[in-house]
């Protein structure tokens, strides 16, 4: 059995590269739709969030597709031929227990920008369910993702990482917006988007006492649904430009491939703002705001990459819980991998026993045919002796196989298959 991952995230790739590899929801659908046609024997779960794009692969057999084929497939799905050449250097690879440990750490938010943020777990869950719907999952990925949800739950219960609710919006607003504004209570906030990050932003702002919140989304009904929970005003998507006149803080979290606000859009509104500073927070990848906006006077733009330093401070403040959480994740990953290998080796042991017992039976039949004058009691004694011999002969190798699961299982398992020509 094989379990592996190819991926990149905010820790090892700049935002430009993450933008190139990010999949929007429809892109994920297409990716998973086409996967079985291209790689019928390989399970796949694609996790694409603002900070990471990771492809988890599983196989009940001993092989996974050639990396080159996977890179070509990703490049073709992204419609970016140049990606195929860039991915070997950009993507990180892990397999086995290491890949499982990474997945479990991601789901437990140990790899998140903001340690202890809860959104990542639901994003992982959604990615898994999405893959299951598209039937790209199988025995290996089912086991891995179900085990990762259990591991994340254990981390949440047994450590203090999730004790105080933190999120990317909360860190961004508290670290940057409050460096600009004296108070947010009298400020108008425009939230663009109605996804999970937008909801998290609204929740944080509402808890912080922000009274004037305006929500705009391409699908108005979703904006209304979200705004209703927080008493926010809803405007049409096209009215977002006019709303800039009264907004002090704009938070965008839309899954789009092109910027939703350009430099010209903001520049035309500056006169009406009469020098009031404008705080723009871009929580999406690909970025929602044109990078050139940052050059405008009195406009302060922040994207996810800018939050690293602030998140590092958050990480330090929660670092006391980190070793405990990492220990749990490591133990869960080792257990998961052991269980998976045990399942594989059990099947192999069963096949080995069957093979030897079939041989024993055929030899006994041949012997009894030659020795017709044996009494029933003698036949039974011989049968028992043959059975005992088979069991004793197999005992040592099977014990070694079981012991080996905890160390390097693949070597001995493969050796067994080849030595005994198991099918």
């Amino acid at each position: 059995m094989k379990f592996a991952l190819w991926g990149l995230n905010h820790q090892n790739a700049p935002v430009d590269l993450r933008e190139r590899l990010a999949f929007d929801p429809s892109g994920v659908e297409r990716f998973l739709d086409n996967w079985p046609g291209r790689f019928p024997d390989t399970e796949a779960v694609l996790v694409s969030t603002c900070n990471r794009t990771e492809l988890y692969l599983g196989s009940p057999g001993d092989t996974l597709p050639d990396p080159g084929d996977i890179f070509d497939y990703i490049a073709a799905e992204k419609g970016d031929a140049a990606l195929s050449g860039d991915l070997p250097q950009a993507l990180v690879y892990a397999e086995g227990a290491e890949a499982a440990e990474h997945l479990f750490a991601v789901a437990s938010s140990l790899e998140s920008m903001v340690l202890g943020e809860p959104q990542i777990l639901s994003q992982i869950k959604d990615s898994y369910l999405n893959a299951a719907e598209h039937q790209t999952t199988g025995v290996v990925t089912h086991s891995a993702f179900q085990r990762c949800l259990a591991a994340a739950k254990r981390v949440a219960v047994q450590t203090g990482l999730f004790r105080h609710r933190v999120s990317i919006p909360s860190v961004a607003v508290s670290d940057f917006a409050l460096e600009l504004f004296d108070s947010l209570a009298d400020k108008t906030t425009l939230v663009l988007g109605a996804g999970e990050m937008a909801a998290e932003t609204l929740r944080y702002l509402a808890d912080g006492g922000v009274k004037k919140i305006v929500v705009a989304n391409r699908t108005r009904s979703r904006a209304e649904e979200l705004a209703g929970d927080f008493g926010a005003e809803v405007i049409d998507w096209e009215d977002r430009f006019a709303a800039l006149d009264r907004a002090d803080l704009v938070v965008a979290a839309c899954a789009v491939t092109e910027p939703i606000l350009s430099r010209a859009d903001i520049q035309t509104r500056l006169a009406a703002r009469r020098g009031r500073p404008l705080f723009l927070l871009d929580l999406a990848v690909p970025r929602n705001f044109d990078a050139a906006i940052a050059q405008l006077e009195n406009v302060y733009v922040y994207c996810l990459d800018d939050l690293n330093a602030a998140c590092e401070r958050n990480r330090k403040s929660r670092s006391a819980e980190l070793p405990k959480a990492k220990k749990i994740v490591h133990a869960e990953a080792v257990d998961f991998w052991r269980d998976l290998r045990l399942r594989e080796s059990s099947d192999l042991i069963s096949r080995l026993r069957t093979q030897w017992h079939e041989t024993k039976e055929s030899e006994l039949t041949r012997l009894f045919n030659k020795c017709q004058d044996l009494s029933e009691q003698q036949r039974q004694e011989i049968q028992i002796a043959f059975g005992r011999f088979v069991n004793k002969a197999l005992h040592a190798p099977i014990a070694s196989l079981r012991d080996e699961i905890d160390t390097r299982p693949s070597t001995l398992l493969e050796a067994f298959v080849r030595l005994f020509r198991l099918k």
Partner: protein
Amino acid sequence: MLGGINAVCFVASYALALILAVICLFTRRNLWRVFALVVLAAGVAAQTLFLYHHYFSRGDQFIDSAAGWFALLAWGLALCALWLSITLPKSVYMLFLLPASMASIFIGAGMSDSAVSPDTAARTLRLIHITALSGSALLLFVGLITGLMYIAQQRRLRRPKQNRLLPFPPLERLGRMLNRSTTFASGLLGIGIVAGYLMNYLRGADAAVPMTDLLVLGASALFILLTAALVIARTNRSRSVRRVAIGTILGALILAVILMAAAWNHSAHWHPKAEDGVSSSEGGMP
């Protein structure tokens, strides 16, 4: 008992508070901040008693002297440092205002403590002149620090990945403080200048301070600069606070140069201690 308080008491307090404020930057522990505030408060209290004692022993003569004026300015700066450090915990006013306060004390110690204008006819005008100019200088120094913090904070907000050693208040608050301090500084400067001109008029041509005096020219130029900065800021609001910040910083630097030059270059307003022949033990800074 009050006579026992001398400049060493409060300069030592200010120096210790300054050291504690620097320690706060690296430890970020509230305990050090509380110590710094307590020590500073003790220094301000000592200096208040010192000024009270000298004013009552010498009356107007004390604040009308160069030594008295600098002592008053130093006290105002220390008081501002204390007040701003309490109301704006995320600020570094103490780090900048206390050295300015101590510098004022040292400059004042080298200045004459005899009154500039012994005439008593224009007493009210003289008090207005001195108080308004002291207040204006004080606000300009606060404006200087606020303006520098504003520009630094603006720069820092544009470069979020940079390390932040010095804590600053929010940009919005700094802008508001800067506008207020500069507007009031400009207003007080205008009042002080008008009071000065009126005093000159009442004294007559013989006893008048010449219009070419360094402090008269400097204060007038400063008033024009600050007023211009405020007016220009109003015309283009997109960079208004930044313009006020630059105007205020320039103004405060010009003021510092004028004060230094006036203290050492025989202004008709002030003259060094050695020239007046009055012993410092009576009323000057030890």
